[in-house]
């Protein structure tokens, strides 16, 4: 079944499991429409593979509207592809030309081992969250929401940090595989709010300690993470986290 008139050559990372070696495999795809999303193009390729009784390419995806953070492909060397400010599922084929060769690889980082093909294990992020990415307030103990006025600018800045979708593009794109932008976004969200200040010291120390334990690299301020972040989380958050971290350690 033809959908459009773009013909492409895909070089896709295939790897059976974390223990086995992977390699790039070349697949031609034909009849692609510029209105398709990148993942819909993958659906078509997979449909073709199924029809040939070959095993389809495993890739993570779910909401397909840029918010769940599940999709994770490095496309032509860039996390989430050539456009900025979007996830792979929001990338459309109109961003490519007929005849292009497209190389697709998984997130690459020691702390994100490949599970299969393009799917990676990001549970390291979960463990960092569990160390302090919260405010310790049990259900039912809260006061009236408007008892605590919060300046709009602070609330907005907190929201901008909280918008992180936890996809891991920041790690994938960093030459050191550092998770600083991800951790800084969570630390900042709470550091900017009065209700988050109570646990600020423990939070930043515990989350950073877990980040180091997971094997993420150090931050050398190249700023690549900021460029590739689909939610536009800024480096300012890393500066804020460093400040929080310094203050937390000075308090000891």
């Amino acid at each position, binding site marked *: 079944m033809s959908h459009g008139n773009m013909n492409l050559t895909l070089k896709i990372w295939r790897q059976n499991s974390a223990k086995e070696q992977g390699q790039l495999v070349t697949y031609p795809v034909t009849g692609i429409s510029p209105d398709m999303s990148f993942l819909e193009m993958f659906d078509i390729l997979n449909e073709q593979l199924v029809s040939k009784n070959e095993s*389809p390419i495993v890739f993570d995806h779910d*909401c*397909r509207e840029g918010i769940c953070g599940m999709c994770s492909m490095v496309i032509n060397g860039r996390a989430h592809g050539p456009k900025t400010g979007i996830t792979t599922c*929001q990338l459309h084929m109109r961003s490519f030309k007929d005849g292009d060769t497209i190389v697709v690889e998984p997130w690459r980082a020691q702390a994100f081992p490949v599970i*299969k093909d393009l799917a990676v294990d990001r549970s390291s*992020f979960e463990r960092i969250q569990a160390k302090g990415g919260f405010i*310790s307030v049990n*259900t039912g103990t809260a006061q009236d*929401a408007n008892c605590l006025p919060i300046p709009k600018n602070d609330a907005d800045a907190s929201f901008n940090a909280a*918008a992180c979708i936890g996809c891991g593009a920041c790690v994938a794109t960093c030459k050191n595989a550092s998770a600083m932008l991800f951790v800084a976004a969570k630390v900042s969200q709470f550091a900017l709010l009065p209700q988050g200040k109570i646990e600020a010291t423990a939070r930043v120390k515990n989350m950073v300690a877990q980040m180091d334990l997971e094997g993420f690299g150090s931050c050398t301020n190249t700023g690549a993470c900021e460029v590739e972040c689909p939610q536009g989380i800024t480096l300012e958050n890393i500066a804020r986290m460093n400040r929080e971290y310094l203050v937390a350690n000075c308090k000891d």
Partner: protein
Amino acid sequence: MSKLDSKIPEGNVEQKWTKYKASVALVNPSNKRNLEIIVVGSGLAGASAAASLAELGYKVKVFCYQDSARRAHSIAAQGGINAAKNYQNDGDSVYRLFYDTIKGGDYRAREGNVYRLAEVSNSIIDQCVAQGVPLAREYGGMLSNRSFGGTQVQRTFYAAGQTGQQLLLGAYSALQRQIGLGTVDMFPRHEMLEVVKIDDKARGIIARDLVTGKLERHFGHAVLLCTGGYGNVFYLSTNAMGCNATSVWKAHKKGAFFGNPCFTQIHPTCIPVSGDHQSKLTLMSESLRNDGRIWVPKKKDDTRKGNEIPEEERDYYLERRYPAFGNLVPRDVASRAAKERCDEGFGVGASKMAVFLDFKAAIERFGKTQAKKLSISNPTDEQIKEFGKQVVVEKYGNLFTMYEQITGENPFEVPMRIYPAVHYTMGGLWVDYNLMTTVPGLYCLGEANFSDHGANRLGASALMQGLADGYFVIPYTIGAYLAKEIAVKPIPTTHEAFVAAENDAQSQIDKFFAIKGNKSVDHFHKRLGKIMWEKCGMARNEKGLKEAIVEIRELRDEFWKDVRVTGKPNEMNPELEKASRVSDFLELGELMCMDALNRSESCGGHFRVESQTDEGEALRKDDEFAYVAAWEYKGNYSYEMHKEDLKFETIKIAQRSYK
């Protein structure tokens, strides 16, 4: 005698929940430690329930198919969450939220449940703010509100167009905290395939580890299904790709009745289908209807661009038909009105199956206000446009970007094209006031249950219900059951019921691989979706539904003969996951059509063309259909319907009017 006991407490609607809480059985802390609860699904309902129950001291296990609890599809909810705070001083109250929800649901929901929902709505906002959820604020530091369809007050709290994300991350952070404290065991990349019943009570689940393919047995004193809706039965919907009905459907086949399966919400403002490659549909938040105006050209088959059609040649049909609510009529009304215009030949875009959602007037209005604020006395048109755009970006920024990404058109220059799409399912597992299904110990929360939205859900009420169930209802109601279970020791998973359930799951997997057919899973899913959309979609009739039932049965037979599942069972295998989900949709779809056929009235999102007013509005038949249809599985694809009569003691039942 009906088998259904809704267990609604006696007394005035205002007193029911208060009295219930004061008299419900409690479980003491030392016993809570020994009671295990399984939560399936980690969206707003699942994450909030799991965190709250763990805080109380129960031992909790949480399962989700995604790689993290944070990715559940609640994350994609855009617009907002309702609460009866009356912060705007515009006349809101718990009673009004209750009334609007019952009326919005076209008088097909229970008064007792809905009043409780409205009552706890305020606590949700308090809880979320305490968790550090950055909801939108005014310059004075107070929380901001906006309007949603079907209401005349501003009671919707929001965080730009990412409210679901922020609320879910709040519940997720509470859950992660409990995981860190060791009170919750988290099982991501796991899918529940069977409910385990022992002596008629739910005692556990069989889950498949989606990475290794291994089947696992898990015991629980109670099981909570918080797995969302079944909109993906239509193939194309605003649901995530993985959203499925497997847990509720397997539970249904083990004895949980299914309530009002035909009640589906078709959301009016989605980006239209662009071609047959399409894998999902994207919503444009209802909040856009606060400021956007919906219209079609007055002339049929008008091929001009939206911005080239002069004002006097535009038909703002919602404002024309419903002057009181205008563009903010409830979703079912707005969807049908769009379909009506397109069916009459006034649709726009290449497919002619779209209407315009236009921000031109809003941009001008915002721009002028902004210019005044900045004391610019004679702003140029350019300035007004620029200022107006800035305000729109602030309010709806991510939605405009999303639209442009998908369509390649700039919605600041040309009006958006939108069309209705499947979005939410009001139907779901039948539950009583305790949120328990007809299987003792098996609960169902959030979108997965049928309880609060009647035949149509109002905007910004899904987030409210998911969190109400999880944070503020189940922590109380589960005590009523578990207080009697404290003597029950954990049952070893070597019990024959676990073995039998695992065998059932295994034999279905083996069956998929044994077929070795010629057609992919998606092939069948798309065909099912087409039948459902055409014959059980926005308008339904007897003939179409009867045909659909036959066609679905044939398609199901073909599926079991000719589906191809590649790969192996004991590995990460998305084709196998899809096959399992689609096999359940192929059964559920038939039940939806049977329910739609039985209910020969129109109500809310369920529109039977045989039952409409002279003006084409939905016509209810209260003397015949003021009941919940709860379907019991009788084996071999046969079902028996039970009725739970709906009593309206507080609200006077009336024909809905938004004129």
